[in-house]
């Protein structure tokens, strides 16, 4: 199977490139033509230099990758460039796995879904936490009815702000927003899968920039979502993990049902410690590689737990929650999900 990796803008591209390079039955061709020259600090190479470092094949343009006739492409560009690349893939009849969030506007997301629908190609979204065995255990408990009716869910996806490696994460145009845009969708996507046909109706959100005074976009946020089945959800979407913390962040969910309460922590599985020579805390993860399971599910179909990769429509629903969140931060009142 031939897989193209379009852009190294998102830091997840490094993980995808390494995994696909080593995946049996996969040929990989990468490209990163939009890498900004001024962004290429020596510590964070882009383009051909990064491809060399990762030991993966590289093409100079998107067209070259499509001329190679890939079976699927993975889009890891800046958020606002997802639409253009998805439409390009649809023109070539190629399936897409797009980095999250699906797009920075509802209009872009709708256009992407429509382009893939017309082309008869798949539009999937990179939500790796769906593939956490701990999430699968929670999901199985919910589906088996062990929790009964779900009353509330407390979610958190806190992480580091990676604008040292990739400046665009703090660019309101390229990223479409700040922490609210970056992280809300991970939890919202789990709920989209977990709550079945329930739909978000109303969002209240508060945000600030205190973690990075002077930031153009918000660096911390708390989002409260009401669903039409009366489930109430809170999401901490902050870039609140200190930059030098040894772990990038985590994803946590507590699910309160009428009959049981369960919770999971997606990245709890590590040996931790302290490295005296370098005077820093260390973590040695031993859990499942979620990116690998995501890529396998996209390319080869779901694994034993039957969990499937998120599709375009789900990405549009989670984006609408984010948009309602931004509207709420402006009005100071709950905002209806469009």
């Amino acid at each position: 199977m031939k897989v193209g990796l379009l852009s190294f803008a998102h830091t997840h591209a490094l993980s995808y490139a390494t995994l696909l390079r080593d995946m049996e039955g996969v040929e990989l061709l990468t490209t990163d033509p939009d890498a900004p020259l001024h962004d290429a600090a020596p510590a964070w190479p882009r383009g051909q230099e990064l491809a060399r470092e990762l030991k993966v094949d590289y093409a100079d343009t998107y067209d070259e990758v499509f001329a190679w006739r890939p079976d699927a492409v993975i889009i890891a560009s800046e958020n606002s460039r997802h639409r253009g690349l998805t439409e390009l893939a649809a023109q070539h009849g190629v399936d897409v796995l797009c980095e999250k969030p699906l797009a920075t506007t509802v209009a872009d997301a709708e256009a992407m879904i429509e382009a893939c629908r017309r082309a008869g190609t798949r539009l999937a979204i990179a939500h790796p936490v769906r593939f956490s065995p701990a999430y699968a255990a929670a999901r199985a408990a919910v589906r088996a009815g062990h929790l009964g009716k779900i009353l509330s869910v407390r979610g958190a996806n806190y992480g580091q702000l990676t604008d040292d490696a990739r400046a665009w994460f703090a660019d309101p145009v390229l990223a479409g927003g700040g922490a609210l845009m970056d992280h809300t969708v991970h939890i919202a996507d789990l709920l989209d899968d977990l709550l079945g046909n329930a739909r978000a109706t109303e969002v209240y959100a508060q945000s600030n920039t205190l973690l990075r005074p002077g930031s153009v976009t918000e660096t911390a946020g708390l989002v409260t979502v009401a669903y039409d089945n009366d489930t109430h959800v809170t999401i901490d979407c902050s870039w609140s993990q200190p930059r030098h913390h040894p772990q990038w962040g985590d994803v946590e969910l507590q699910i309160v049902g009428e009959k049981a309460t369960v919770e999971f922590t997606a990245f709890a599985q590590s040996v931790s410690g302290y490295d005296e020579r370098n005077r820093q805390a260390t973590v040695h993860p031993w859990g499942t590689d979620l990116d690998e399971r995501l890529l396998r599910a996209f390319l080869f179909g779901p694994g034993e737990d039957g969990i499937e990769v998120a599709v375009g429509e789900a990405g549009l629903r989670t984006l609408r929650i984010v948009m309602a969140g931004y509207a709420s931060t402006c009005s100071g009142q709950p905002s209806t999900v469009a």
Partner: protein
Amino acid sequence: MLDLHVGLLGAGVMAQTHLEAWITLGARVSVYSADGRHTHLAAAHSAQGVEAAPSREHLLEHCTLIDICTPTRTHKELILAAVGAGRHVVCEKPLAMNPEDAQEATDAAARAGVHLFPAHVVRYFPEYEALHRAVASGAVGEPAILHFTRTTAYPDWSSWFQDPSQSGGILTDQMIHDFDYACSLVGEPVRVYAQVREHDGDPRIASGTAVLTHANGAISYFHGLWGQPGTTFRTTFRVAGSDGVLHHDSHRTTAFRVLAQHDADAGAPIPQTWLSENPYASELREFATTIATGRPSRVTARDGVTAVRVATAARESARTGRAIDLTAEEATR
């Protein structure tokens, strides 16, 4: 899928655990148990092609690998019979009741030119694999002092565990896991001191401690607990060295947790599943790979003998109140 016909001996909890792992790996399994319970075990897994064998001899004749999951006291004779028939062997820990028997079984396997794998499964738990990798890469420098704790509910599924002459008590049956793992990290020990304290009226509640001094100078400490009713499984470790420290507590790394469940005892508790690859499957896959390719497995028969030797010396120490010199014991053998 494994191209392997496994002959499973035993039908208890460990046999069931190994059977499920073999099924995951796609092996063909026939099972036999002297107490006749294997027919139930085979019937429960008949959809996966598991067969009940008519006799032990039938297993030895038809299977490539014999997997021994029987009470400890029977291990040596079964190993000797299996290697005598030219079969590779996986044997649940401890390899035998005493180091002499373990050595005899190991020598017999070597003479027969077959593999003998003691099933020290802790080596295959991903957190212990991560520690091993980190220590090997120099993450703590030279390991100096190591702690391992293991808290489990007493194995109440079979009565033989209650007889120390059959199970070896907590030092042999439970703490041997961590003895073996520590030796894999810092090498064989030269001295052991251990104590055991049992509940006065109920041997199912027991606490054991042991201190090993290793040939390279490292000291390792062990605390094993067969806890009171309701005890939940927990393991911890802490490895400190010249350049750093690494630690683990399974209570902190349990990625999926049930905080409360209404009527959980009414028959449908929320199932707890492996939240990473089943370590028994990892272990048995490695053994099968070694048989197929000759690539060394991380656990060898010699490790199994060492673990029994350490556990037996620990019991001797607990009995006599003296530290046991393992180098002298080796020299006199």
